[in-house]
């Protein structure tokens, strides 16, 4: 029941934000609370990325690679470019790296600072930024490209 509501809720959010294909949903406080609630009790990874960040694309490629080998990786992606002009590129990157199966979110126009602060007031916007979230919902942030070994250890060993 909870999952059904959550799915419908996210679908409606996608409709509200004008994305009929639900490729990406605008991120905000309510969405964040829902994400934390939905994933409570499991170990998951939150990755924040930008179209302007080459290292971010390398990290997305690592997720793409792991996804080819393992099902249901507990990964949630947030694009931090709060500018309408990047929407086509954002969609292309998600498509090119076959990431649409993951929950994809983005910072809507002019919301980057507020959303960054919401996620982590100590994060200054450097990218890629990853949060390792444990079963108790505790966030541990790390800046910079993650190593494949680190990703595998967090995403695969626990859940497969």
């Amino acid at each position: 029941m909870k999952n059904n509501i959550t799915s419908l809720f996210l679908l409606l959010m996608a409709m509200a934000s004008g994305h009929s294909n639900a490729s990406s949903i605008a991120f905000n406080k309510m969405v964040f609370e829902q994400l934390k609630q939905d994933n409570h009790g499991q170990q998951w990874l939150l990755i924040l990325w930008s179209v302007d960040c080459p290292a971010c694309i390398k990290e997305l490629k690592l997720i793409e690679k792991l996804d080819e080998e393992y099902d249901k990786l507990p990964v949630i992606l947030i694009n931090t470019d709060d500018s309408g002009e990047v929407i086509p590129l954002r969609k292309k990157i998600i498509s090119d790296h076959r990431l649409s199966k993951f929950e994809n979110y983005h910072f809507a126009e002019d919301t980057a600072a507020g959303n960054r602060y919401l996620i982590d007031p100590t994060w200054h916007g450097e990218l890629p930024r990853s949060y390792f979230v444990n079963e108790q919902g505790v966030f541990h942030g790390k800046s910079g490209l993650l190593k494949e070994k680190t990703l595998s250890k967090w995403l695969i060993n626990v859940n497969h």
Partner: protein
Amino acid sequence: MVNAMKNSTALALLCLCLYSNFADSHQHQVATEQVNDKKAQCNNSDIICAKTVTSAFAPNGDLWRLWSHQEQMYFQFSHDLGKHFSPANLVDIAKEKISARNENRPKIAFDKFNGVYLSWATPRAKRYTADVRFSYSADYGKSFSTPITVNNDHLLTGHSFNELHVNDDGEVSIVWLDGRLSYQLRKQGKESNGSALYLAQSTYNKSSGKFNFSNTQLANNTCVCCRIAIDINKDNQLAIFWRHIYGDNIREFALLTLDRSSQKQSEVKRISNDHWKINGCPHQGGGISIDKHNRYHLTWFNQGSKGKGIFYAFSDDQGKSTSTPLAIGNSTQQAAHPNILSNGNIVDIVWQQFNGTKHQLWHQKSIDFGKTFTAATQLAQTKNSADRAFIIKKDKKSYVSWHRPKQGHWFQAL
């Protein structure tokens, strides 16, 4: 079956309720998706449409401001320090993409003969590729030359984060981050890290009517996504301050000084020692300003294991040694993006903070060449997004320029 229907109905009602609440409470979110339509309708020449604004004083004292929107650039000038501006003027060149958000923006400079010089980066078809572009006006902006590409490698690779300096006589220096070396290494199957720092120089050739830019590599292994800062020292030498990559992705600020006449370049000096190890993009460039005694005033941002936040230091020997770095701003309020300007004995530093709801512009001043600073004061704030702030000067007075997209450009004496 009935129960199932009841459950479905309840679920549908609950979802409708949730949707209704969501739609009410997320008008901003919905609106943001409509912003593009709004922007498409907004007057192209309106400065509030811009993500960034670049301000500069012309030699005659006019305040200019330059911005881009929808693949075109616009400018205005003011004869009264920003109280009134001319109508927005289109830079009348063919439309092309212009990098103008966050660390990237078009640059403007002047000579003493009514020459106006523009430089910008134009993204190319492939991701992370761009060219550095240049255009010139001999008639104070009435017309501009057909743009030329400054980087001469003809490669589809990165060339961006350009900085522009023009002296009174029209000698042009453009510095940028260049990906040609890493492109060539990748083609050879070799590893590369970062970009290279490049310099182009030229003077207007009156007989040919053209600029012919040299291309010189100054350093390699620079960070790829932080703006560069430049200034001219008292010996008319170009000083460049940028984020460099040391060792295993330690991102620290570096400085070099270039003697324009002899083309001799000083050794690259490491300025910061904050040990910020990150294989990624800090998106935070530094600031440099050189005073009449050749003291280099420097500010930067790091998130290293040995230093976090904004720092200020000065150097009296072109970066061989520096004063003990002074922490600036409130790190718990996300202090970032500092800019600095010296003017006589005064050194001004501005930076931004964000308290969770508002962007704030902060300021500290020194009146003794950077030895001591006044307490920080807040200059302005805005709820919505904010561009980086920059300080410019006219004679003995310094001014801060701060653009707030969709709200307007703010300009004030310090």
